[in-house]
């Protein structure tokens, strides 16, 4: 059955197709969750929305690509290089540029991050040009046949990778001294300062960890997605939607939100087509922002 | 002029304000005192429309204003100042006051003229061009008062307008407030500075933990044992009475 509306066709599909789409949505969603994890951590601690997040993802993806292209390193192994590299880059960026230029004021920091992301995107555009870059690994088309859909190894790796990293992050935040310091700063900035925590350092560490998460996500994404300078912009809106849906500052929220968005996007693509499917994200985003800005798991913070 | 009728407000499990009723008669200066955390600012917020009461009603000049928004309440003549002063930092003193003046005046030139006039009333006529962000705490408090005045209020809610001022500044502002009352404005103020409360107010309400525990002339209220206990703790009233008896016995003995 097909309905036509203003040039869009709506069809009904078999439950197998829908299930298949949903499953691939789960895998996609796990990567979104990983990207969102970094964003929610940064928001939770610095109380600002990192507008440079998408550009950081894009740069990390290029790093993984070039490590493969020039040095022949497999993307999954490249994770061991880009994740620490991402941490250092994020730390330096926050400590030197964002922290300083932002003057501690939220509105200005917002604009600084936008400026930084523009510089990063266009530097990439300048040096790498707009052509798509793809990584081809020998196993990227191998996988399992689940009947309703075919799941490739990179997708499984993405899901497992995301879960693993979330676990590691949770452990870090709960049991290490730095993790506790981060939680202290996110709850009560001045109080943390008074007990001797170097707040600027913690800000930078949090930003660094956020970037490291993004770098991990990049390594997991590259086998399936082609890289180009605009890809950051695409992921930014998705990442924000996930974080807003899941709740700012909540790890569980980032995971749940990521999975929900992943599935919704795939189903949206199925029913509304490639391009219109993306509107589901904007719509969810707007609705959540208006009616439940704290998201599913978020706490009320000003 | 103002009648608050059994107003209640809860925040989570905390009863910030419980069944509070009070009256502020026209043309008088009434004060609201009580220890910190008693709920005084919350009450002001409820009266001026910044918070909605869970139950109870607020009447201003005979009209029920309970669920109206602050800006419409202001237009009807009830204006509040804030305990933590919030000037329009990047604007000059004159521009700050003019914002209030615009409530009644549509033309820019009129509002600016009115601003100059009001500034003179509070003694800020020399600071008109200064940026509000560069003022001292006394200056900011004065500015807050001036801004509220320029809206031509009938009732002024002043929230700790003297906090942070030194003795001279307090004397100045007491004079100004008396002047405002003389010009026909009713004043309801929250204050901790007792000398001001005594010298200014015609009537006082005491709020403790969201409940009015006493009201009356300032002098009676401050010697009320319940009030003393609210500020100084349980048993304080007796202790003070005991000391007074001892010292008065000593005086009669020495005499």
């Amino acid at each position: 059955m097909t309905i036509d509306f203003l040039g869009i066709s709506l069809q009904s599909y078999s439950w197998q197709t829908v299930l298949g789409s949903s499953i691939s949505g789960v895998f996609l969603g796990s990567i979104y969750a990983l990207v969102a994890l970094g964003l929610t951590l940064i928001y939770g601690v610095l109380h600002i929305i990192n507008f440079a997040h998408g550009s950081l993802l894009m740069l990390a993806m290029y790093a993984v690509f070039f490590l493969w292209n020039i040095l022949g390193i497999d993307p999954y192994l490249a994770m061991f290089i880009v994740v620490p590299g991402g941490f250092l880059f994020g730390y330096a960026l926050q400590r030197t540029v964002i922290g300083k230029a932002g003057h501690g004021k939220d509105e200005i920091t917002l604009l600084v991050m936008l400026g930084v992301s523009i510089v990063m995107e266009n530097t990439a555009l300048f040096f790498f040009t707009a052509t798509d870059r793809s990584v081809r690994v020998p196993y990227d088309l191998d996988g399992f046949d689940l009947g309703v859909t075919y799941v490739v190894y990179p997708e499984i790796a993405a899901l497992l990778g995301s879960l693993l990293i979330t676990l590691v992050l949770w452990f870090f935040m709960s049991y290490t001294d730095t993790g506790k310091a981060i939680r202290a700063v996110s709850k009560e900035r001045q109080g943390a300062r008074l007990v001797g925590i170097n707040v600027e350092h913690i800000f930078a560490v949090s930003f660094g960890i956020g970037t490291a998460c993004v770098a991990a996500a990049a390594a997991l994404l590259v086998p399936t997605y082609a890289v180009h300078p605009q890809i950051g912009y695409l992921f930014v809106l998705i990442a924000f939607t996930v974080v807003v849906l899941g709740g700012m500052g909540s790890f569980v929220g980032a995971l749940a939100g990521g999975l929900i968005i992943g599935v919704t996007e795939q189903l949206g693509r199925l029913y509304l087509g490639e391009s219109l499917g993306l509107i589901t994200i904007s719509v969810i985003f707007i609705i959540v922002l208006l009616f439940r800005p704290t998201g599913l798991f978020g706490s009320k913070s000003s | 002029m103002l009648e608050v009728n059994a107003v209640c407000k809860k925040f989570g499990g905390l009863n910030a304000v419980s069944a509070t009723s009070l009256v502020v008669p026209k043309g008088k200066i009434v004060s609201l005192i009580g220890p910190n955390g008693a709920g005084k600012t919350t009450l002001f917020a409820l009266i001026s429309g910044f918070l909605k009461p869970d139950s109870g009603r607020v009447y201003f000049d005979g009209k029920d204003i309970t669920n109206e928004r602050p800006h419409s309440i202001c237009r009807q003549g009830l204006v509040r100042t804030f305990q933590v002063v919030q000037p329009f930092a990047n604007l000059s003193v004159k521009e700050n006051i003019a914002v209030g003046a615009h409530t009644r005046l549509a033309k820019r030139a009129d509002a600016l003229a009115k601003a100059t006039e009001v500034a003179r009333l509070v003694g800020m006529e020399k600071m008109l061009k200064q940026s509000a962000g560069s003022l001292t705490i006394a200056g900011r408090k004065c500015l807050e008062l001036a801004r509220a005045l320029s809206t031509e209020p009938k009732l002024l809610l002043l929230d700790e307008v003297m906090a942070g001022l030194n003795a001279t500044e307090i004397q100045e502002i007491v004079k100004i407030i008396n002047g405002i009352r003389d010009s026909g404005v009713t004043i309801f103020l929250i204050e901790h500075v007792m000398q001001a409360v005594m010298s200014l107010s015609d009537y006082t309400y005491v709020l403790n933990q969201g409940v009015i525990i006493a009201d009356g002339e300032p002098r009676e209220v401050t010697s009320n044992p319940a009030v003393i206990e609210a500020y100084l703790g349980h048993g304080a009233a007796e202790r003070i009475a005991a000391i007074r008896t001892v010292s008065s016995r000593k005086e009669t003995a020495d005499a």
Partner: protein
Amino acid sequence: MSNRVRLIGWCTFLVMLSLIPLFITSGRWIDFLEMTMFVAVLGQGWNILGGYGGQYSFGNALFFGTGAYIQALLQFKFGLSPWFSLWFALAGTALVGAMVGYLSFRYGLRGSYFALITLAFAEAFHVLSRSLTAITEGGHGVQLTLNQNPDQAISTFQFNFAGEFLKAYGFYYTIFSIMLIAFCAVWLMERSRFGAQLVAVRENEDSAEALGINTFRVKMGAICFSASITAMAGVYYTQKFLFIEPGIAYGPAKSVEALFAPIVGGLGTVIGPLLGSFFIHGVGEITKEMIGHVLGNRPGVDLILFGVILVLVLAFLPRGLAGLVEDLWKRIFRGRNA
């Protein structure tokens, strides 16, 4: 700097701008000035809500694109005269502004959340304009037919075949007039009660509310005004290039361009967007001249530079170039009087 001095400076500058075509014949310079003024209008639109109102929109492409599309579609589909359709473009875009404003302000969105929602709306319209092909011609974009009849040049607002002067300078004067109108409107706003209230809302919403300002209405007014001015830039774009498509209309480029100029030039000032636009495009041109040979004319150089300037201005010049000029003026004149 006294108001009279400012006014004289302004008028002189504008008179100069209006006479430039008499002295400059290089097409490249005319193009440069046209583009600078175009971005100045785009920036002034953003400035109303962002600079004066303190609400930063990251999705002003929404207003630009809607203005451009309405202007294009009414001519394309119904053969309306551009002089007629432009009013619909302005009104329609103001309505879109009202919708976004209503949703955002009614639900109390501020700061980053407001920026995000404007981004989401721009992206949503981007997707819609690409998909609702029946209305917008989708990815093909809308191509307006070139009218080669010189007698119809003014009525169809197309100057390419209208004789030497109009061909060279027609659009220059168009964007100059639009800029004058937009800037005058903002200048008047600054001196009005609405302007004073808008700025109060920016500085402190609670205090503004306590002083009798209906903050919701003021913000709504600001976003509609901002939308209309931005739509004017969209209308100009459609007429000049006779082509609009989803990426140009609703892509992030215009949203970003809209905020560069006022931030660099000076938020909340009338001249800010023009100063800012001149500065960044001027620096861009000079850089391209100097480095262009070495690095080749690859895309992205401009924006890298703009991004760096933005961050530097935010770090060191919080009041932008306009603030810098004020400070220098004060120093020079205080020096003289001392």
